[in-house]
């Protein structure tokens, strides 16, 4: 027993000394639990997506249409954009013609157009138009569901008005009025109530759809699924005309996103592992041997950087080819752009790996820090789930991760089919990140003892 306890104590003593192992075994899972919890709304007073940019163009003069806009603005899921900002910073209301270029320009992915004829005597129900860039399947479905829910919950009066207009057109005013009077009589006879108030409500389009909306609002399946009768009724009354602005010809959008996200995560893992090789070479005396030959520190560092970029490029392209073979991701249609963006992502990831090696003092520390940052960046950057599912502060953090910009780049090429010129902003961010992390890494390496 004493021997067992001694051996047990030894293992815990080693663990206590190995901070890296503690980080990986405790801190990383805690962080993952925290992030996944945030995504699923745990610990938040509200759940679901937050702050998804939604452009709204209201062409209708109907007051109820403005009620819909106001309702959308009150939704925390959306950040409603109604103004177009001119180059001189002046603004004007957004027009439908603005939407498509702005969607292609990634300023937002969803837009709602409330047309002048939102209600018409030609048809029953409302006509609304949704323009979208559904590069993210899950987010897109969520947005559609939220839009429907908001419409159903907040503009029942529009639906009633639509029915009234349609009835008037077919029946004519006298017959329609007689029809309404007959309904009022039946309601009063069955349920009681003031016939004048009921008639005024009916003429004004208030058929009690708001009650359906409330029931729908409280339904657990409200977020987009059409599984109950209320939802079904309302969805028949609202004509949502949809137009996919970007990615219409993409065969496998989900695979495109998933392959990109996971490819960059595994690239980060691979390059972080290669960062620990710095310490292996140091411990083996290889740096001494190499630097006592006509090899400079700069050559040593940049050869490692180039190796990382080429390795990363090969890995990313290979994974996208695997995505092509397995799920039909369209690689060959965008090969040039894909290689450019993959090389930029590989450069940024290599720089990240070298920075890890430069700021840590042991392979264990490098490995632990790399694991922590890779998993955090992957989770926050959108490799696992859309960033709109996270709280807003996390969405801001996401934009400081390589993973986020890598996925943006892959989507821009494979989903939106953007040209090299259109890719320049993303390439600029990735290459700027590379320059920044490599500058710090080289500076740290020059001051460190790893080469001595």
């Amino acid at each position, binding site marked *: 027993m004493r021997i067992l306890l001694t051996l047990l104590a030894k293992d815990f003593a080693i663990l206590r000394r190995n901070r890296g192992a503690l980080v990986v075994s405790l801190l990383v899972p805690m962080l993952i639990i925290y992030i996944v919890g945030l995504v699923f709304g745990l610990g938040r007073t509200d759940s679901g997506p937050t702050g998804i940019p939604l452009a709204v163009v209201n062409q209708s003069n109907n007051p109820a249409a403005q009620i819909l806009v106001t309702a959308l603005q009150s939704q925390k899921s959306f950040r409603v954009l109604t103004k177009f900002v001119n180059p001189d910073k002046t603004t004007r209301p957004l027009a439908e013609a603005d939407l498509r270029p702005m969607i292609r320009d990634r300023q937002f992915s969803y837009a709602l157009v409330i047309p002048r004829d939102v209600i018409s005597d030609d048809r029953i129900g409302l006509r609304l138009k949704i323009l979208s860039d559904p590069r993210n399947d899950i987010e897109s479905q969520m947005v559609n569901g939220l839009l429907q829910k908001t419409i159903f919950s907040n503009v029942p009066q529009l639906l009633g008005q639509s029915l009234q207009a349609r009835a008037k057109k077919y029946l004519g005013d006298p017959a329609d009025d007689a029809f309404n009077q007959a309904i009022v009589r039946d309601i009063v006879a069955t349920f009681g109530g003031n016939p004048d108030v009921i008639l005024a409500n009916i003429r004004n389009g208030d058929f009690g759809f708001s009650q359906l909306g409330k029931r729908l609002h409280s339904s657990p399946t409200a977020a987009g699924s059409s599984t109950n009768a209320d939802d079904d009724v309302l969805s028949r009354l609202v004509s949502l005309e949809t137009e996919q602005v970007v990615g219409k010809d993409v065969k496998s959008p989900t695979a495109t996103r998933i392959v990109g996200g996971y490819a960059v995560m595994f690239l980060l893992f691979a390059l972080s592992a290669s960062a620990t090789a710095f310490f292996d070479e140091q*411990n*083996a*005396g*290889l740096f*001494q*041997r*190499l*630097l*006592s*030959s*006509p*090899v*400079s520190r700069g*050559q040593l560092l940049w050869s490692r950087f180039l190796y990382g970029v080429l390795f990363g490029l090969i890995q990313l392209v290979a994974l996208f080819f695997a995505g092509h073979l397995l799920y039909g991701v369209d690689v060959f249609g965008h090969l040039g752009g894909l290689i450019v963006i993959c090389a930029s992502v590989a450069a940024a990831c290599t720089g990240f790996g070298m920075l890890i090696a430069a700021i840590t003092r042991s392979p264990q520390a490098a490995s632990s820090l790399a694991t922590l940052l890779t998993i955090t960046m992957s989770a926050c950057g959108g490799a696992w789930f859309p960033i709109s599912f996270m709280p807003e502060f996390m969405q801001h953090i996401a934009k400081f991760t390589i993973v986020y910009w890598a996925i943006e780049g892959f989507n821009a090429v494979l989903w939106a089919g953007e040209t090299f010129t259109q890719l320049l902003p993303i390439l600029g961010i990735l290459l700027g990140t590379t320059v920044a992390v490599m500058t710090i890494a080289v500076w740290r390496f020059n001051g460190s003892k790893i*080469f*001595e």
Partner: protein
Amino acid sequence: MLSLRSVTKRYGTLTALDDISLEIARGEFFGLLGPNGAGKSTLMSLVAGLRAPNAGTLALDGTPLTTTDPAGRAALGLVPQQIALYQELSAEQNLHIFGSLYGLRGPTLRARIDEALAAVQLTERHRHPVKTFSGGMQRRLNLAAALLHRPKLLLCDEPTVGVDPQSRNAIFEYLERLNRDGLTIIYSTHYMEEATRLCSRIAIIDHGKIHALGTLDELLTRLPFVDEIAFPVSPATAAFAAALAAHGDLSDSTDDIHRFRPRADFKLSAFYALAETHAVPARVFSHQRPTLEAVFLHLTGRRIRE
């Protein structure tokens, strides 16, 4: 050939090398002896261009050695203390890489690799990964990798650590042959017998300073050591010991042995005559010459270094 002028190297508040000046001539087999932390590795790393001195200059054949001039290091070969080889690669691949870094190409590189493998007796294993080699084989390849480009100066930093006697002997013979062929070697070691066997000149370094420098004989004679005669402490030798005290230094030791260091004017014949007078037989005496280890311990002390 190698010239160090007033070289000082500090790590924070620790002075690892303190105003060292040293000249090493072409063809020398120069030994660097010192306890742990004495400054040997720092000195080697400065010569190898891995670190820069805080003060002073280093030059090889008049060309300054710096960390920023890789070309100046082309004439050097370093055998690091560690097995500085790519373990996953074969012996041949390792030699190919290190040879290429020195600008060797094509048939010349091929010939040098074959020559090096033969010299360290690894020709038959040239395609095997280094990680499958024994410690001795790895040490031999470690040495070969530093010689492909035929350096003028070879720096060996404890190159025989953990090596079996056969491999150690093979390394010694190879180094001796290279030195006979004109290669200048600086050899850092803890092992006195290695320095005694190999080195034509030795520097004993401690606390960043050179405490002694010269050939083995010079070190032994210049230091305050003379021959020492030892005999057992016993009633039979007590009177003889008392008589000897007038003719030199006599010390009792804890292991019941008298150690007598005669004065210069006390002849060996007089010593034996005195022994005969006190009926002490000659067979109890043992005559000891001072060793390099004795010199080393005298200069660097017996305190264990961390």
